């Protein structure tokens, strides 16, 4: 019925006003294929129409930035002729529809963003969030997502070094699945997503095109989520890590042999995006012949081919005299390739199908003329109420509280997940999952690259600006405890419905928080992603920005700190500011009830001094571990568990032991060292129990609680 009345543009998710601007760009009514292209390119997911204006706030420049936001991945110079490429993406809605394939195709997509730049992907991370595991549906989603990440990442042959897992009611109807990838490349191998010059030939590489994802990822990620989800199911994309592996190797060979002028991955918006963006960036146009696209299904229409989100495809732009060689490389790696177009000297994107013209539009207009919304922004009225009700725990039983915290699936060991991921491939993982930041050695340079990602929806609900700034500081400190200095940031802004002014306010605050912290740290934002409409049946998720900080350890410590290197007799030091009595957003608060209060703000001056100290200590201390989820007591317990040694701690008080204020870390050192300025000695390693004040618990009992956290919850 509705199809009779609803205009096609509206069925494709376009507003009337957007439709009118297409008409005015073209000077006529669009043809069906043209409308299809504009609708996907102008979706929220592809055009950032609600967020773009605000993202300009990010600091994006530094002398070491080679490519900032705007390309498929950010690229920074790490010296000795090497570059690092990094990017983060979300696959939230597809993972809710089909957790295994949703997560798997998310991994596939982020890998393509990185090897599109000429880089070999060397490591993956994931940041995943679900509702509580006592609900079977959440267990199903968690299991499927971890399975999909493992299934794809392992088979494609890129190690997954970790990430983070958070559980909260607000994700029950809307899990978050973010994935991040790091690649490295030689300077001369950098490739951009440009069509190059007129006459260049477009070669489509990889999987055959089917009806996958039509009305899929970009539409799914650009509208609210409700029961209608079921009807969107037929478009589920299926990942093929084997195809992607061959595609990676083939593309890297093309770059090495200097056979491509530019290349673009096919992600959301498929061919529509992969043809128009590179042409638009070059200020040129392109002739595209859809009859030459290798298809998986028969009877596909032009709009379907243009909108298809079939995975594992790349579009390479090649000088005519190199085409044969490119096709040979493809054949040797056993991937399909077809020549589908030629770059034009003017700015028109001209598409034909079945021998007929189906589209003729200005190429750049699909990206550049996308709508830009300045949606209303309003601070939520309920915030003051939340701030006025801080959680005040008073004195708590230390060991029972510690064990309760260790049993939380969001605090206890994540080994259940990361032992399903190959995290050792390439012999580069010096510090892998289960520590703070990951540390990879860069072969032949004496350097290390460190990465940490952090998110905390609850903290950001209570204060999106302070919360998101603290994420940057936390990630930076995590990188520093491996001996690396922060170099660049990527961010993934997972938020609710932008048509609500409160959600737009959260967006603005989050951008401000991240920007402020990055400026204080002197690091640029080199890329990111925005995922909006994370709401189900009208309820928005907590604002959940995720930040990833990349750091460079130069030189890499000879023996970088690890949690498992504490030995009896070593001293335990706490470095950082005195605690406050603020538990807003902490795990102790989560244990006891609703969120309340206003989180402590980061202190840039202290933050920088602490980071300096961490980098220095990373060259001498066997163990460095930052104080975060669960507070100091959990930090110490994790060192005891990993090292299999007890400890005696001479500290008391709920704030000292369970507070989660920023800028604090623990160092375990051999006695007689040079004490740090911001530090105090808080205890000593030894025995087989952890003793805090006059309470104590065996390390075995701590380990049992901590290791069992997720497995027990999954069995429930």
């Amino acid at each position: 019925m509705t199809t009779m009345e609803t205009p096609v543009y509206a069925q494709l998710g376009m507003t009337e006003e957007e439709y009118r601007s297409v008409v005015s760009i073209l000077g006529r009514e669009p043809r069906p294929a043209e409308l299809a292209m504009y609708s996907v390119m102008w979706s929220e997911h592809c055009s950032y129409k609600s967020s773009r204006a605000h993202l300009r706030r990010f600091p994006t420049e530094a002398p070491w930035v080679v490519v900032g936001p705007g390309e498929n991945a950010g690229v920074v110079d790490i010296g000795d002729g090497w570059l690092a490429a990094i990017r983060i993406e979300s696959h939230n809605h597809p993972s809710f529809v089909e957790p295994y394939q949703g997560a798997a195709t998310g991994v596939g997509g982020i890998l393509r963003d990185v090897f599109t730049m000429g880089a070999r992907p060397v490591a993956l991370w994931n940041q995943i969030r679900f509702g509580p595991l006592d609900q079977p549906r959440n267990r199903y989603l968690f299991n499927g997502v971890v399975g999909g990440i493992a299934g794809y990442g392992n088979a494609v042959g890129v190690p997954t070094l970790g990430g983070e897992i958070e559980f909260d009611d607000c994700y029950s109807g809307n899990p978050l699945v973010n994935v991040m990838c790091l690649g490295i490349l030689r300077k001369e191998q950098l490739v951009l997503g440009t069509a190059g010059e007129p006459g260049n030939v477009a070669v489509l590489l990889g999987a055959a095109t089917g009806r996958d994802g039509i009305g899929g990822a970009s539409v799914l990620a650009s509208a609210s989520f409700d029961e209608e989800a079921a009807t969107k199911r037929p478009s589920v994309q299926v990942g093929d890590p084997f195809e992607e592996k061959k595609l990676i190797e083939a593309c890297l060979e093309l770059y090495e042999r200097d056979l491509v002028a530019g290349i673009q991955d096919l992600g959301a918006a498929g061919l529509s995006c992969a043809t128009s963006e590179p042409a638009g960036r070059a200020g040129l146009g392109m002739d595209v012949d859809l009859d030459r696209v290798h298809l998986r299904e028969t009877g596909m229409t032009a709009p379907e081919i243009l909108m298809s989100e079939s995975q594992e495809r790349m579009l390479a732009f090649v000088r005519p005299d190199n085409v044969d060689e490119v096709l040979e490389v493809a054949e040797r790696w056993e991937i399909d390739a077809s020549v589908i177009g030629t770059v034009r000297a003017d700015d028109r994107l001209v598409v034909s199908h079945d021998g007929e013209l189906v589209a003729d539009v200005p190429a750049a207009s699909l990206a550049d003329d996308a709508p830009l919304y300045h949606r209303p922004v309003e601070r939520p009225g309920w915030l003051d109420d939340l701030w006025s009700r801080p959680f005040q725990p008073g004195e708590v039983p230390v060991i029972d509280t510690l064990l309760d915290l260790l049993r939380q699936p969001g605090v206890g060991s994540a080994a259940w997940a990361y032992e399903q991921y190959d995290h050792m491939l390439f012999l580069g993982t010096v510090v892998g999952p289960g520590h703070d930041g990951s540390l990879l050695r860069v072969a032949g340079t004496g350097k290390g690259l460190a990465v940490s990602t952090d998110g905390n929806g609850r903290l950001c609900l209570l204060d999106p600006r302070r919360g998101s700034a603290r994420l940057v500081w936390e990630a930076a400190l995590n990188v520093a405890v491996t001996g690396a200095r922060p170099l660049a940031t990527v961010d993934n802004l997972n938020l609710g419905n932008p048509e609500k002014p409160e959600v737009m306010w959260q967006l603005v605050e989050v951008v401000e928080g991240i920007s402020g912290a990055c400026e204080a740290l002197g690091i640029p934002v080199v890329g990111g992603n925005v995922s909006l409409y994370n709401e189900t049946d009208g309820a928005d998720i907590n604002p959940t920005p995720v930040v990833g900080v990349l750091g460079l350890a130069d030189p890499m410590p000879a023996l970088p700190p690890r949690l498992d290197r504490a030995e009896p007799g070593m001293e335990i030091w706490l470095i950082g500011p005195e605690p406050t009595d603020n538990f807003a957003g902490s795990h102790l608060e989560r244990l006891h009830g609703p969120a309340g209060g206003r989180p402590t703000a980061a202190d840039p001056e202290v933050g920088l001094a602490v980071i300096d100290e961490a980098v220095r200590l990373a060259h001498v201390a066997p163990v460095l571990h930052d104080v975060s989820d669960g507070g100091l007591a959990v930090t110490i317990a994790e060192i005891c568990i990993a090292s299999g040694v007890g400890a005696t701690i001479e500290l008391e008080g709920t704030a000292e032991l369970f507070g989660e204020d920023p800028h604090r870390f623990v160092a375990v050192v051999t006695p007689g060292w040079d004490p740090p300025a911001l530090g105090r000695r808080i205890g000593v390693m030894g025995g087989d129990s952890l003793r805090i004040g006059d309470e104590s618990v065996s390390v075995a009992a701590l380990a049992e609680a901590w290791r069992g956290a997720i497995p027990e919850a999954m069995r429930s």
Partner: protein
Amino acid sequence: MRVAVAVFPGSNCEHDVVRALGTLGAEPELVWHRETDLEGFNGVVLPGGFAHGDALRTGAIAALSPIMEPVRRMAESGKPVLGICNGFQILCEAGMLPGALIANRDLAFICRFVEVEVVDTGTVLTAAAEPGQMLRIPLNSYEGNWVDPARTGRVVVRYADDPNGSQDRAAAVANEAGNVVGIMPHPERASDPLLGSDDGLVLLEGFVRSLRASVPA
């Protein structure tokens, strides 16, 4: 002392194997799976990964690759042939080692260090180890559960604890002659203390020693 490291579409540990063997004085060379001639090599390694995406059964398609003909000839003439992880699976599928590898008992991919014991030092992989020697080496597989209905396999390395349901706790298995060996954990990943262990070196050294003793094909 040239050793071929076979590369199938979907292999991913080939560079790691080259690096580890290279530091031990061998001359490893990558060889694409379509190669039909391994003349001049003293031995061959089938590295880990997901050849052909593990489609159908892990190792099944790779076992029929052109390169498996010369690999088989090498094995028959007594030269050292080593399969690591996916390589072990390929050797079983090719019928060059007894049994087959099925999904892990708990139906999850396992990536972590495991303890193993060398129980047979009479093979090309274990020649440099002591009988009973305990090693800490990473396991990294979904189909690491070895079954051998005919019970003809020669178990040469055994898990200290059973991580995956493997028959006889087998972590490595050899043919009767001891020159063809498949191992599920990755010795090349335990080749540097900075990465957590160098216990795999004693195995790779045994293999390199066997290469040295082998005359090129």
